């Protein structure tokens, strides 16, 4: 499997095998912290970092670790990167770290990361594994941010509120007030809202895929009209 093209890895991670919309892995953090763009982006970046790092290291050691002990080793590697990320967030984005709370350490248990380590990184060369980690992380993060944006708009009527927690004072005035405060549909902020929004996103993705598939089928070479001898016995294959 060493001949995987980077283009395929990219499209897999971002779209056709997106961890959140297609594999439906890591739904717990996806549903829990996507109440606003800043939370979603924070967790998305943290997951991206861990995923890229763990994929890289797992790929590096793939010939040294025997099959029997691979899972504990993967988990150790992932836990190490999660701890690093946690410390980084504590150092640079302390308030966001406090808001995300338990969901940062819980990245260890995000199935996407162990899934990629097992399914891809442990079988591929280092550069491919690294790109796969980044693309899968980006795909997961993108879905997180979209869900966060939709829920923030519907639930609290704002967009990009409190972005300074992630990007520093520059982002303090990025907040868009879309409609008056206190009129948001509270349901969107609550867990059921996350389920409904993710459900709609999956439906939209599937219908886009359907459209693409029908177009591709239509564009494929039309059936040649050649006369065939009619067979009266047997089956026409």
């Amino acid at each position, binding site marked *: 499997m060493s001949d995987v093209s980077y283009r395929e890895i990219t499209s897999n991670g971002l779209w056709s095998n997106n961890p959140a919309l297609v594999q439906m892995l890591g739904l717990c953090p996806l549903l829990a912290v996507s109440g606003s763009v800043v939370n979603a982006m924070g967790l998305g970046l943290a997951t991206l970092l861990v995923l890229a790092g763990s994929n890289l290291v797992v790929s590096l050691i793939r010939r040294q670790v025997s099959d029997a002990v691979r899972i504990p080793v993967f988990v150790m590697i992932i836990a190490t990167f999660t701890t690093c990320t946690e410390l980084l967030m504590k150092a640079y984005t302390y308030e966001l770290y406090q808001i995300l709370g338990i969901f940062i350490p819980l990245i260890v248990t995000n199935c996407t990361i162990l899934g990629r380590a097992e399914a891809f990184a442990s079988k591929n060369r280092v550069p491919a594994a690294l790109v796969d980690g980044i693309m899968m992380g980006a795909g997961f993060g993108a879905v997180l941010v979209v869900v966060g944006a939709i829920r923030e708009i519907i639930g609290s009527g704002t967009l990009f509120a409190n972005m300074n927690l992630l990007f520093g004072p520059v982002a303090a005035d990025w907040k868009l007030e879309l409609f008056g405060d206190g009129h948001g*549909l*509270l*349901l*969107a902020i*609550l867990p059921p809202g996350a389920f*409904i929004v993710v459900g709609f996103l999956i439906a939209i993705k599937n219908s886009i895929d359907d459209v693409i598939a029908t177009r591709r089928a239509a564009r494929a070479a039309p059936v040649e009209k050649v006369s065939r001898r009619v067979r009266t016995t047997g089956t026409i294959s």
Partner: protein
Amino acid sequence: MVFARASSPHEHSALSTRQVMQYVLLATLPGLVALTWNFGWGTVINILLASTVAVGTEAAIVALRKRPVLFYLQDCSALVTAVLLGLALPPLAPWWLTVIGTLFAIGIAKHLYGGLGFNPFNPAMVGYVVLLISFPVPMTTWITPRDLLPAGVHLPDLWQSLQIVFPILGAPGQAVDAITGATPLDAFKHHTGLLVEQIYAAEPLFSRAEIVSYGWEWVNLGFLAGGVWLIYKKVFTWHAPVAMLLGLTLMAALFYDGGSSTSGGSPIMHLLSGATMLGAFFIVTDPVTSATSARGRLVYGASIGILVYIIRVWGNYPDAVAFAVLLMNFAAPLIDNYTLPRTYGHSKARKATEKKP
């Protein structure tokens, strides 16, 4: 005298979905009249607005799903959902509340699951709960019954009510705040530390009532009358509603403890307050989302009655019919699994999941 002879069979055919829905709509009338008499035009406006939105949404989604629009509109099921939601919403609720609730009920709770007959949850109750969770303030603003309003304050007339619901029609001559008040269940819940007698004496909602809770008793009796008529018309069987009322009565009787300060309230108060009768005869009896067999409906109804009492007395919300119904909707397939009727000729009933021998 004409002696008309009819040939057999004398049995009528089963009711069509459309007839069932029309009977249900008719049966809500006594309750609707009582609501309108006590709380003004708000409920009628709710129902009309919800019906318009519901029929529009239903038509749009059915068209989107490439199915015959008129055929599906004729079964009146969207109207029933809208009317039940309109009856449940507080009178004079702002228009967007009704619209959002109806959109949710028809669009998400009904059609995303496959339309009539496929929805696991009661659409009207999903709409109600979405609103209750999302907009707690307007959803808990109820009107004081007509005769309990302070002197000089009147319920708004039809035009003023329309102005309150649709602010675009101009400022109403009267503030809504002047006519809002607690419901009996609210009042009972918030007088902690008082004996039941003292609560009754302190609250005109109880002290001026004919039976137990002013205004609400007639609303509940109205829905009871409509429900009994529906049973007489064989629109649904008695099992689920009677079981629900019995479950609620039993719980209330068990925890009444003679009216002490920790009492949960008398059985008759629980039966004739809040949404008890509306729930028992119009929500619990939904053929799609309830259990299927007679035995299953007894279990289903009784569980709802018990849950209503538990949430009313020990939960955070004053009324609980919607929550209890949704919780038991979850459980209905499980109840069905264990209450499969015994097939004629077999010695005992099977479970639905049992492997065939």
